[in-house]
């Protein structure tokens, strides 16, 4: 069974994108642990660890991705979980996306992404781990 964590770090309250993705992954037969809004990087990594997820998806629309995402990656490494794929959704400028991908993020999905693409991506990532 594929288990995925979908979380919203930071302080913005726009969780529609996260809910759409959570629902699409659920309908694709996965177990989605949805943490809801205002998660700290510490809470996200603790949840990923306790739930033994195959991948982590973060939805960020606040513009704080360059602070939050490197912190999550750092905490994952500290827990020995660098092998758990991390992907992002939300509004992330291209230059930032390139930088985050270089830091170890496995995928970045912007507005207008087809949910089928996300499902296929998550399946491939989960199969690879």
């Amino acid at each position, binding site marked *: *069974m594929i288990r995925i964590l979908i979380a919203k770090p930071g302080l913005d309250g726009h969780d529609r994108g996260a809910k759409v993705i959570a629902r699409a992954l659920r309908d694709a037969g996965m*177990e989605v642990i949805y943490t809801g809004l205002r998660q700290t990087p510490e809470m996200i990594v603790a949840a990923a660890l306790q739930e*033994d997820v195959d991948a982590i998806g973060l939805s960020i629309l606040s513009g704080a991705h360059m602070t939050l995402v490197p912190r999550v990656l750092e905490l994952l490494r500290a827990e020995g979980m660098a092998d758990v794929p991390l992907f992002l959704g939300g509004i992330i400028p291209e230059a930032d996306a390139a930088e985050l991908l270089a830091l170890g993020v496995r995928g970045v999905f912007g507005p207008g992404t087809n949910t089928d693409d996300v499902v296929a991506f998550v399946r491939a990532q989960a199969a690879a781990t």
Partner: protein
Amino acid sequence: MTDLVAEALAGRRRALARLLSLVEDDGAEAREALARLCSRTGRAHVIGVTGAPGSGKSTLVAQLAAAYRRRERTVAIVAVDPSSPFSGGALLGDRIRMHGVSADPGVYVRSMASRGSLGGLARSTWDVVQVLDACGYDTILIETVGAGQTEVDIARTAHTTVVIQVPGLGDEVQMLKAGILEIADILVVNKADRQGAERVAAALAASLELANTPADGDGAAWRPPILKTVATTGVGVAELADAAARHLAFLRSSGAMEEREQARMAERLRGVARERLLRLVLANAGPAAIEGLVARLAAREIDLYGAVDELLAAAGMDPASGRRAGVTGEPQRRGDRANG
């Protein structure tokens, strides 16, 4: 292959997380792990929390966990949500209400999908609880799926069952019906700041009055207390934790603990045997025999009971005695003597 059991027992949480996934997915490795952990189980106080969807289970469980942390007990939370009957997927959202405890190293939260089970828990919830118990968590809180009237598996899994009611869900007759209220060791009226909470509490009290508590002079019977809580603010949560502790003390002092343990184990034994036998029968009969029977059933050529006789015979069992049939693979009619 690292030794997950040894690592989990040594307190490594990622090993514990992996072990729980193994147990959820079943299989030989999981069984071996459970066998190794068995002698270390039976120490934790297992508390079940059940109630209708939206009655505040997650919020109350998170508050209870915080209350136990203040009493310096470690806590594991097992939160079950339903799997989709169509996709098999699930959206597990109980952590949304558990922010306060989710990064506390003394609390372990695990979400589980029900994976087709209908009793309010998942098939492997009991096994997951065993692993957490063996790994030293003092209190284990199980949150069931949003339960209606018949999801009573929790009572066979937990020592103490907390049933949550909220104002506005029907009249007193609902409380006389069989099922979920009967399994309560503690009754909670949550959202007690709302209108109608007093009436719900009064109706619960009246329904308990009618209950046939076994008459015994030494006062050894447990009467479920009715507590009022507001889970969002924490009102009444300390009293609930106290009541759960009193219930555990009662179970231990009255001998009810051993009784329940026996009943629990008998139930588990039957359940696991049922599951294993079914799997063996289906595997031994083979997909071709099953397909053939299904086709004949759908064409009304055979009735269900006759089909099961044939299924057992195809699996190499005598349909009447369940003993191994002399001839395997050949369909036999009910009453035929397979062993002559």
